[in-house]
């Protein structure tokens, strides 16, 4: 017995939280099968690519929200941040192509800045992040309406809009490769690397047990603030993609915060922090988008869709809650 116990730890390759991905993968697969049954050409490369492209914003947001949630916090301000960014971009660019890049830089910077404020208020002033970001949500919505007198002004340049709207045509294998997919790919790779980096692992530890993390040399306030900054940056990227995809509107970011949080939880990330992977969060977002598309193809009446969505979320989360070992 003792000798058996003395063997080395099984050193399987270390992949944080891979086991947690099973439920979301199953759900995604089921939805995709249902989709393909109804609409066989959905899986054609060009159709799939454009689906990925239009889903990119919410996936990016989910990646950003993941870092906040795994650190044990919430970010309810991302939806209003997206709206504010799109509206601000339109007014600043005012259909002037030459202003595109400066405004893109400005959006990223301001997204990071809003995240920084969220993070500092949460960590330094010890305000629960639910409240911090709820307050920020109210402030951003109020401020952007105020600044634009209640109706978006100006317009986005074609140069700005191409990120979310245009594509490389005639690409081998896939045919049409939307820019948004490339942006998504870059964000996803970055997010996975960050998740596996020392920063990512210490962030997860800070979400799991902040006291232990602090006493192991983690600057808990610092990493949590960084998580909010990442979420703000993700919102900026999402804003650029959404603004590009569909133009300026006050509805651009409406409800995206709940969408992103739902996606993250669907992806097996625990609210309260410390557990889950960013891949799961992004798959959760993709699953949600697949669900919406599925409902379009099956012609589920608009008014009932939220009910179907609610039921599927509850079912999926209940299943994974059951799976997660209870002692």
């Amino acid at each position, binding site marked *: 017995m003792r000798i058996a116990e003395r063997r080395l730890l099984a050193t399987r390759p270390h992949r944080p939280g891979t086991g947690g991905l099973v439920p979301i993968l199953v759900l995604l697969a089921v939805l995709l099968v249902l989709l393909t049954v109804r609409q066989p050409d959905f899986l054609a490369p060009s159709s799939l690519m454009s689906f990925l492209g239009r889903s990119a914003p919410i996936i990016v947001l989910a990646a950003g929200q993941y870092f906040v949630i795994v650190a044990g916090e919430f970010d309810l301000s991302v939806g209003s941040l997206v709206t504010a960014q799109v509206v601000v971009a339109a007014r600043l660019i005012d259909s002037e192509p030459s202003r595109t890049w400066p405004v893109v830089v400005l959006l990223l910077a301001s997204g990071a800045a809003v995240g920084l404020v969220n993070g500092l208020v949460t960590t330094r002033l010890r305000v629960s992040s639910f409240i911090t970001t709820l307050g920020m949500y109210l402030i951003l919505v109020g401020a952007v309406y105020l600044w634009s007198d209640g109706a978006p002004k100006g317009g986005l340049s074609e140069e700005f809009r191409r990120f979310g709207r245009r594509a490389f045509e005639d690409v081998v294998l896939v045919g049409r490769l939307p820019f948004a997919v490339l942006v998504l790919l870059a964000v996803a790779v970055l997010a996975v690397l960050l998740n596996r980096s020392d920063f990512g692992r210490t962030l997860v530890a800070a979400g799991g*047990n902040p006291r232990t993390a602090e006493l*192991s040399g983690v600057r808990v306030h610092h990493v949590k603030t960084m998580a909010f900054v990442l979420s703000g940056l993700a919102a900026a990227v999402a804003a650029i993609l959404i603004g590009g995809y569909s133009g300026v509107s006050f509805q651009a970011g409406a409800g995206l915060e709940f969408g992103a949080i739902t996606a993250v939880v669907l992806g097996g990330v625990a609210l309260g922090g410390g557990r889950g992977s960013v891949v799961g969060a992004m798959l959760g977002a993709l699953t949600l988008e697949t669900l919406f598309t599925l409902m379009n193809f099956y012609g589920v009446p608009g008014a009932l869709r939220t009910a179907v969505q609610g039921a599927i979320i509850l079912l999926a989360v209940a299943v994974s809650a059951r799976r997660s070992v209870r002692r």
Partner: protein
Amino acid sequence: MSDALPSPLLTLRGIGKSFLGVRVLGEVDLDVLAGEVHAVVGENGAGKSTLMKIVSGGYAPDEGTITLDGVPRRFGAPRDAQRAGIGIVHQEFNLLPERSVAENVFLGHEPVRRGLVDRKAMLDRTADLLASIGESALPPGAPVGRLGVAQQQIVEIVKALALDARLLIMDEPTAALADNEVERLYALVRRLQQRQIGVLYVSHRLQEVFDLSGRITVLKDGRLVTTLNTADTDPDRLVRHMVGRDLSHYYPERAGPDEPRPVRLTVRNGGNRRLRDVDLRLRAGEVLGVGGLQGSGRSALARALFGAAPFTTGDVTLDGEPVRLRSPRAAMRAGIAYLTEDRKGEGIVAGGSVLDNALLAGRALRPAWRGRAARTARVRDLLTAVDVRAAAEDQEIRFLSGGNQQKVVLARWLALEPGILLFDEPTRGIDVGAKSAIHDLVRRLARDGAVVLMISSDLPELLGMSDRIIVMRDGRIAGELPAGATEEDVLTLALGTVPAAA
């Protein structure tokens, strides 16, 4: 065990339990008589806690029967066991700091009059219970968070008694107590005995087991080894039953008193909210023991040196140079490591994997992308070296036993190759085998030139391990003792009964 004994209060027969297919307990038989203190001992992971949870309704057994007063019982929840008259005093306090003593004592069974909680009755009855065990000084209306550890322990016990418990389970009840407080607990247990209450007493401290119990049951690897009459055995034999081998000497050899090694860390006039006038010199290669009562400033000293609650006055030098240890990171950069006393709350990230836990400090202090693989490999080696037993390195650490968790935390700090290690109760709640492994390690680190500051409430350990001992009292260093001091010396300083000749 003889037929002449009266019929037992509690009888367990063939109790077994598995988790996720792993059998942690099997075929355990045990009896407790009314008015008997029955000790349960065994290494960590022997199944003691699981057995206690089964008796108190925390888990349902997979097999076997529980008979209380001759009636077979099945407990679906702690509530059922409580109703049947089984109380438990947990190793970790189950109290709500915001609520009053009375509210805590009667939680779950508040007295009700006309549909509303009868607060007066609650306070009165709490006062009565406190008086009945000779603790009438404790105010029933005070919030528990304002009480000291020993008082909280009493609240725990009163909470169990409030249910008219006829069987009381005490799981490591002295773990949080200083030695003088243990005496009070002894008195309390004896008073319970007089009231014909049966006590199941779980402890790692053999001294207590011999002081209190009438019989001792030994568990090992989830199975019953034997049940002995305390009078018929002695500590050596008991340990042999527990570990299955002789532990000829508990504590490793000290380093010889050879040439004095250089002074590494000094503190002059150090002070903060909890410490005053701390003067300290730590030499390479020594183990400095720190004794004192709970709350005397022992942990505060370690926290000050680690920068978690820094000194606000005084000077600290490292290798002759002044240093400012303003934060854990600063201390870590200076080569200081701190193994906390509260393993669950401050030592581990319960939901994290074994490997993530072991890598945490290195990742936090020196984040890097390149060289990660080498670092991970080194930590793997360390985990093996300290003999962590886990199913896999990506197993969540919360599923490990306390001793194995402590080894993971040790590996985390060793990975930083610290020159100064602060150990706060490193062996508390850890089984004998893991304990001696940690002792060996401490000694080896010192031999290799590290400074070890070791806080311990376990006097034999403190005396056996330390090259030198300082004793804290009221935030000051009450005195210093050389190796070879006696338990009385330490207690005298800790209690301040005789003015310390410093």
